[in-house]
């Protein structure tokens, strides 16, 4: 039971002060990069480069105007929303099916196949560039949203599979058995019983996949050439070149780019954290 300040001993009060100082430090560490980026979007180039942590001398939205004028940031923003969302939905849908099978069904080579798929997480991105470029090019999907959606769906495969398998393992078998007794088939049990129960895991996999898709840069650069399929991270490169820079506009563009990620994570953070630990204790 929580005790009030008056009921605490001196030692208890000291511990409470230390606890709040620690929590405040955590909040500052977490918030500092975001606040810094937003503040920098109101500073001039000279202010940013001379004293990175100083406060802006005025709050003008010139950086945001320049960001929109210099790069097609709004177009890329819409592309990012479409590509990241569709790839996330596809990833979670297909991987939930795969994860359910890995969690519940017994078949020869199951473990080898599971670890093989999970190990793809450690393949470096640069090693994938040439083969993925060739495959997408041969499919005629370069410079299309579909091409990027397919790649992003696959790139998030290992992480989603790990999360969702753990989630399904944590759901009691008795729920499925009850569904089967009531006459539900395999597909119905999966969609109507198991998926709602795995809501937390699905949200977690979806959030992580969405964040990865939203921030991905390399494949977006290599696999696209026009404005119709390019995503937001590419727009950030418009503000610096070897001998020219506009940091004010770049920080404004970063602010525009990171807001959806922050909002999504803030909304679903509880599911993400809880499902990452799901499966630790089995029935």
């Amino acid at each position, binding site marked *: 039971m929580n005790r009030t300040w008056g009921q605490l001993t001196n030692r208890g009060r000291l511990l409470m002060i230390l606890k709040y100082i620690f929590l405040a430090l955590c909040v500052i560490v977490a918030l500092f990069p975001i606040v810094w980026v937003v503040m920098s979007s109101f500073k001039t180039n000279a202010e940013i480069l001379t004293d990175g942590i100083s406060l802006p001398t005025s709050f003008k939205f010139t950086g945001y105007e320049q960001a929109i004028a210099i790069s097609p940031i709004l177009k890329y923003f819409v592309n990012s929303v479409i590509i990241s969302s569709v790839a996330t939905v596809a990833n979670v849908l297909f991987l939930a099916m795969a994860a359910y099978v890995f969690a519940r069904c017994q078949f020869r080579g199951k473990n080898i196949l599971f670890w093989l798929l999970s190990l793809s997480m450690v393949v470096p991105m640069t090693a994938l560039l040439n083969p993925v470029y060739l495959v997408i090019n041969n499919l005629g999907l370069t410079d299309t*949203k579909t091409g990027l959606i397919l790649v992003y769906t696959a790139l998030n495969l290992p992480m989603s599979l790990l999360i969702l398998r753990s989630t399904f393992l944590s759901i009691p078998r008795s729920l499925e058995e009850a569904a089967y007794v009531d006459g539900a088939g395999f597909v119905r049990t999966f969609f109507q019983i198991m998926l709602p129960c795995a809501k937390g895991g699905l949200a977690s996999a979806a959030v992580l996949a969405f964040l990865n898709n939203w921030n991905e840069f*390399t494949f977006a650069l290599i696999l696209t050439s026009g404005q119709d399929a390019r995503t937001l991270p590419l727009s950030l490169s418009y503000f610096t070149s070897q001998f020219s820079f506009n940091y004010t506009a770049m920080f404004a563009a970063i602010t525009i780019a990171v807001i959806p990620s922050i909002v999504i994570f803030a909304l679903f953070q509880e599911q993400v954290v809880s499902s990452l630990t799901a499966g630790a204790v089995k029935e």
Partner: protein
Amino acid sequence: MKKRITALCLVSAMAVTMLAGCGGDTAKQGSSEAEGTGEEIVINYPTFQCGVNTAAPVVDQLISEFNEQYAGKYRIEKEEVPGDQNYIDKIKVQLGTGDLPPVVYGGGYNLLDLALAKDVVVDLTDAVNSDPEWKELYTDAAMTTNSRDGKIYASSSEGNLVGYFYNKELFAKAGLSGPATTWDEFWDQCDKLKAAGITPLALDTADSAWVTSLWMGALVAAEGDDAVAFLKQMTPDDYNNPAMIKAAGEVQKMLQEYTTKDAIGGKYEHAANNFLSEQAAMIANGPWMMSDFSDETKAAPGFADKVGVAIYPGSFVYDAPIQGYFVTKQDDPALEEAAIEMVKFFTSEHAQQVALEVQGMVPASSKVEITEKAKEAYPLLAEFLDLAATAKVRTDNLQATMYPNLLDVVSQELPRLASGEITPEQYCQILTENAQKN
């Protein structure tokens, strides 16, 4: 059961239409190839000269003029690849997959040699030799930069005439009347500036350390004919020579005594900002920086009037064309012809004039007239061109001739040189070892 099958069919149909709906214009996919829209051939042209790049308006104007001049026959479709390094990365991937665009701009990144190693570059010798007007634009230096084994593979539009800028007001505060003519005088000026509480040099070490490398090359050039011959050598694989070692030692001194704290680990932007915000008195850089002097988002109003321009002590100036555009081998000969036309147009006298007047870029060819319009727009450029004409020693810069893998090595090793962790001899040895990996 029937209901379930219908639901599955609907879900599948939805997924297929969702993905199909996200598809782009499939006609654009083969944009690096000739497209059969009547007789018009489309040239897909990826370029990093977009966004804040100072050459972006020049490229836009040239593309628009080309498309107008060749309407119905050829058309350039610009592909923006913002960021120099992103462009290099993309070209390297396409080089690996054999899917290069018809025209590649080599810039200062020596992409020509990488492409030649894969045998994907079109030999332009006959095309240039058969067009006297085009051939006339090739200076001896341009011919060397763009040729290999007696064959012409590329064409330049930009010269790389680089000296340094100094802040006249800060110089006056330190009791200095003008730029140094000898290196002894230069070091003396650095000491006087430092004594007056002014940081003498704006330097960098990250992102290949462009600014610092310019000083290093100028110091090498001061060491006599052998040193100049070394600077003119393409892709040298031995940096263990007395001139390089001495220059590395002097750059070490610059980094330790005469620059700002953020030079170590700092990028070009930091060096530029230190000069633009009057925290350092000198910066080595090319004429493309001149437009920044009057850009009020980067410098205080009136800053442009305080800036003077100079050639390096010892009457030295960097003077070499920037490696130009080259054409890559394509399945369709008509597309190759179109690409050659584009390169010819982009490196023509007119194109060089446009770059001069719009961007303040020094032309690759000495035949291009420095117009009154250009002098009016960039008075400092006119002053610099007059000064550069008096220079007795000229060569290309260190970065333009070194193997591309050394650019990262320079960024990694300069901070260690500055901290004294490695000696100038070790620095040159590391460059040599990495050059010999090629």
